[in-house]
């Protein structure tokens, strides 16, 4: 502790302002607390008040002898305290200077100051930075600091290079040191000193502080004593803090300091609360505030604000030399008021200053907390206004800054609401229309920056729509013919983002855009390839696009991208595009010329989930071609698929179960699935909370039951069908349909059907018959049809009222529904009562039509 505190004290001497207490809200609150405490010493803690200091506290005062009451010996403008026995003692008060030897005197003198009490307390603190030493004497002061912690200091010194008591990662949290103070009756007090104050670590009740050395004893045996000590520590550390971390005062410190009230200090406040405090932004190390860089920032911002535009321009140029990649620099510029000033410059007519300011803002806006501050300071609006500037360079720089700032939703919204999207699109238009050679490069740069900004903005759904409705997509399409990578990446990036909106997708799926996207798949630039693949992934949902990709020979380059197994982002994008393109069977046939299925199967292991999802999706499509079912077996693709059933990623589970479902229609494949116990895994997925997973697992179970030789054994041993009644109560039609399909398959096995009947399946199925969903109607009728095979289920369905809705199914437009409903009614007709119902509901009439 001593080590770190004396170190802390040494820091302050570096600072030019060390002799003044900075006027901050924190310090003011602190001074008021000290004042309240000092004023009450005499009445509340008389014992402590009489304690004589080792050396007097001395400071410049405004109190004069006429302010003092009769408790003093006064001669001219000099006063002695009554408490002093001998007149030889130095006077208490001489003009402008006061020397106080006890807390009692301090208290009385402060009270004499009337309306200048606060100033006096401040002057006292400023004049006696070493007050701990003065009050206690150098030995006790240092002993106090070392006592009880000496051994630990030594051991910690070995652990931490800087010899500070708090380990570096705790220092980052603002903690300075931990102290153990021995006390008489409560044992030891564990105290944590941190920049926000001093906190007792879980000590119950007030105790006496006992500090001794060979020469002197000093006992404070009351709660006030503890409080006093903590206050002294608190003040001391606050003081150091105020000098070294002045900037932090203005931001996060203001928040935490509220904890350090006197009341809390005397009760217990553990340092843990400090940890829980959310720290929204990383604060610079306090060393930074002593660095020459910080002083330089202070100077530059000062003259930036103070001078006329000539000086401002000079300062802007100088600020460009600062290391603006460092967050600490950026935060310091902001906290010194520089950021606001730079943003204000954007609202002036000084184009040169604007250019300078924007050059700085572009770099600062890469820092995340600065982005938020810029939006808070209404900077985004000013930036958008500058997109109309007469000077092309200003437009370009403003757009590039927007590209950085629009990194979070609120800023993107502001861009849209202040008309920024239209203005950015205008930049593209300007370039495309510009004919003058002299302006060409400048306009191109502006268009590039505009595209960058649009790319950032297009991450918000509403902005995607805004870009589309402002006619941005055809212009982006025209820019696709550029050969410049730096232009193409943001352009394709924006198109790609917009393609997630269906309305935009229709515009994007034009011939020329797809053609150019395909062309750029062969670019040398990986980032561009990624964006193009992602755009195709989103667009190829549409049949025409898939045909266009084939027409422009885009399938081959996509396959080639699969070789980049190291770049996972590219791999994910490429497999995604392949997946969507393979929805067209013509494309699968072309892909198979290059043995893509084999390559995809190889990507089923040791890949990130983003890749696996797409690979499984693509495999599902490939396996729709019967010949490929044998291929996947031959290249050992089934085993890794089954293993993926253990994943927790729901999108992946959906796709993998679909792929397995496609595999399982082949008997040879089914053997392998059986060997790997795939059916059990699929059954267990019915427990998954996600309805999509439930449904696709159930669909995959269907072919398995049909093709597996020991499906019966598996199902019975697993008892998975116990979950079926629950799933029949799902609200998701797809889940219901899939479960009905499973029931239809299971009902072929008499003993399983018996169990299902016991589980009340008849009434559950009947309850579903009111649905209007044709897909569900089809599978439901199927299920009812198969369930009729058992015992008196036929009659049971009739009693439950299943016949009447099934008759209505006969009017459905969907032939599958009519077919399966007919089959079901046929089964139900074995019961004479059902026949009556059918007749009365006009089934005969309907089926004859």
């Amino acid at each position, binding site marked *: 502790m001593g080590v770190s505190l004396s170190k802390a004290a040494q820091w302050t001497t570096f600072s030019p302002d060390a002799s003044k207490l900075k006027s901050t809200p924190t310090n003011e609150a602190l001074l008021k607390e000290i004042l309240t405490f000092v004023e009450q010493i005499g009445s509340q803690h008389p014992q402590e008040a009489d304690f004589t200091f080792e050396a007097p506290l001395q400071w410049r005062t405004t109190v004069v002898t006429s302010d003092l009451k009769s408790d003093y010996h006064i001669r001219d403008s000099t006063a002695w305290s009554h408490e002093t026995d001998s007149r030889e003692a130095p006077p208490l008060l001489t003009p402008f200077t006061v020397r106080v030897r006890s807390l009692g005197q301090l208290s009385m003198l402060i009270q004499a100051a009337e309306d200048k009490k606060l100033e006096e307390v401040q002057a006292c603190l400023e004049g006696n930075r070493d007050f701990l030493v003065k009050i206690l004497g150098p030995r006790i002061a240092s002993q106090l600091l070392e006592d009880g912690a000496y051994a630990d200091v030594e051991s910690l010194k070995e652990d931490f290079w800087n010899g500070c008591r708090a380990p570096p990662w705790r220092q980052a949290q603002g903690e300075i040191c931990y102290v153990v103070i021995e006390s008489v009756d409560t044992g030891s007090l564990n105290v944590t000193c941190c920049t926000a104050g001093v906190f007792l670590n879980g000590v119950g009740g007030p105790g006496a502080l006992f500090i001794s050395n060979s020469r002197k004893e000093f006992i404070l045996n009351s709660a006030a004593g503890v409080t006093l000590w903590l206050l002294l520590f608190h003040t001391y550390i606050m003081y150091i803090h105020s000098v070294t971390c002045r900037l932090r005062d203005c931001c996060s410190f203001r928040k935490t300091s509220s904890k350090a009230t006197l009341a809390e200090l005397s009760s217990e406040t553990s340092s843990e609360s400090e940890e829980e405090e959310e720290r929204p932004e990383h604060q610079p190390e306090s060393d930074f505030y002593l660095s020459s860089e910080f002083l330089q920032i202070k*100077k*530059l911002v000062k*003259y930036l604000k*103070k*001078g*006329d*535009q*000539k*000086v401002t*321009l*000079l*300062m*802007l*140029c*100088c600020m*460009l*030399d600062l290391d603006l990649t460092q967050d600490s620099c950026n935060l310091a510029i902001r906290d010194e008021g520089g950021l606001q000033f730079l943003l204000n410059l954007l609202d002036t007519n000084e*184009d*040169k200053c604007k*250019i*300078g300011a924007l050059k700085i803002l572009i770099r600062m806006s890469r820092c995340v907390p600065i982005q938020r501050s810029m939006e808070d300071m209404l900077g985004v609006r000013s930036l958008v206004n500058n997109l109309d500037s*007469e000077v092309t360079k200003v437009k370009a720089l403003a757009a590039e800054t927007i590209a950085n700032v629009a990194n979070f939703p609120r800023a993107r919204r502001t861009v849209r609401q202040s008309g920024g999207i239209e203005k950015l699109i205008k930049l593209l238009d300007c370039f495309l229309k510009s004919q003058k050679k002299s302006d060409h490069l400048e306009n191109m740069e502006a268009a590039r920056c505009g595209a960058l900004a649009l790319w950032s903005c297009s991450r918000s759904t509403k902005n995607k729509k805004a870009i589309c409705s402002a006619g941005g997509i055809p212009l982006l399409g025209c820019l696709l013919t550029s050969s410049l990578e730096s232009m193409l990446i943001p352009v394709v990036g924006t198109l790609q983002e917009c393609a997630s909106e269906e309305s935009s997708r229709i515009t994007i799926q034009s011939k020329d855009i797809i053609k150019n996207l395909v062309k750029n798949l062969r670019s040398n630039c990986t980032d561009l390839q990624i964006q193009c693949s992602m755009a195709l992934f989103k667009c190829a949902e549409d049949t025409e696009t898939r045909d266009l990709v084939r027409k422009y020979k885009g399938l081959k380059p996509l396959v080639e991208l699969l070789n980049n197994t190291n770049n996972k982002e590219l791999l994910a994008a490429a497999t995604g595009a392949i997946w969507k393109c393979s929805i067209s069977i013509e494309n699968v046939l072309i892909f198979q010329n290059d043995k893509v299925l084999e390559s995809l199967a190889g990507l089923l292991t040791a890949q990130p989930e983003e890749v696996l999802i797409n690979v499984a999706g693509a495999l599902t499509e490939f396996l729709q071609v019967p010949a490929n079912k044998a291929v996947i077996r031959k290249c050992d693709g089934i085993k890794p698929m089954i293993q993926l059933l253990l994943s927790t990623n729901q999108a992946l589970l959906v796709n993998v179960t679909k792929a397995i479902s496609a595999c399982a229609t082949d008997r040879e494949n089914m053997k392998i699935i059986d060997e790997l116990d795939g059916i059990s895994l699929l059954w267990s997925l019915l427990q998954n909370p996600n309805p999509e997973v439930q449904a696709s697992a159930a669909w995959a179970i269907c072919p398995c039951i049909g093709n597996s030789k020991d499906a019966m054994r598996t199902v019975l041993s697993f008892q998975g069908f116990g979950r079926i009644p629950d799933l029949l109560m799902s609200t998701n039609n797809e889940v219901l349909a899939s479960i009905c399909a499973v029931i239809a398959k299971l009902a072929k096995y008499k003993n399983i059907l018996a169990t299902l009947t016991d589980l009340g399946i008849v009434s559950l199925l009947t309850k579903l018959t009111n649905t209007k969903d044709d897909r569900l109607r089809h599978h439901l009728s199927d299920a009812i049809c198969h369930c009729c095979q058992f015992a008196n289920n036929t009659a049971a369905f009739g009693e439950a009222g299943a016949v009447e809705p099934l008759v209505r199914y006969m009017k459905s437009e969907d032939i599958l529904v009519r077919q399966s409903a007919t089959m079901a009614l046929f089964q139900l007709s074995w019961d004479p009562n059902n026949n009556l119902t059918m007749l009365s509901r006009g089934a005969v009439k309907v089926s004859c039509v």
Partner: protein
Amino acid sequence: MSSSANKKAIQALAETISKKVEHFNKKEVECLIWRFNALLEAQKHSDGSVSGLDRNQFKVVLHNLFEMTDDFIMDRVFRIFDKDNDGFVTVEEWIQGLSVHFWGTLDEQKRYCFHMYDLKGSGFITRDDIFLLLKDSFHLRLEEEGREDDYQDEQDEINELMEIVLKKMDHDKDGRLSFQDFEKSVKKEELLLEAFGSCLPNFRKKFEQQVLEKQQDE
């Protein structure tokens, strides 16, 4: 002189001048002469016939056409345009000046600006030059409070500012800016071209539209 004769004379003059200047074609020179004559006309009104624009009229032109505001700088611009130092900017000096200084290449502009800030013609921008160029940038305090201490503070601030500027631009660390220093700084950051006061037209495009393009139609 009849208007057609006048026109012919101007065309002939434009012919000769356009051969001497680089950045304007004959047509543009003609426009500039017309413009110059119009400006001269306004001045003649008050003090009879003169051979060129006097200092005040020239400053008015700089202000109106190029939006310059700094009086000190405008004086300097006049002195640079007025090559023969006779107190008047003639038509030839006018077009030459515009061509080399305002419409010049970046290299020409660098030389022009450096010359502008080299107040004593010593070949260097010295501390004294910078002081004179920047001293007006801090005038608020003196007027507001008028205390002696503040005057000292202001001196200190200007000195501190000069140190910052020299640190940035004085690459060879000799305490003054040579042309090489200046050139290097401008190369790194083009905004430093007009580091010590705006002396190039602010809206060249506007001027081009108003004077060069518009009058061609007439």
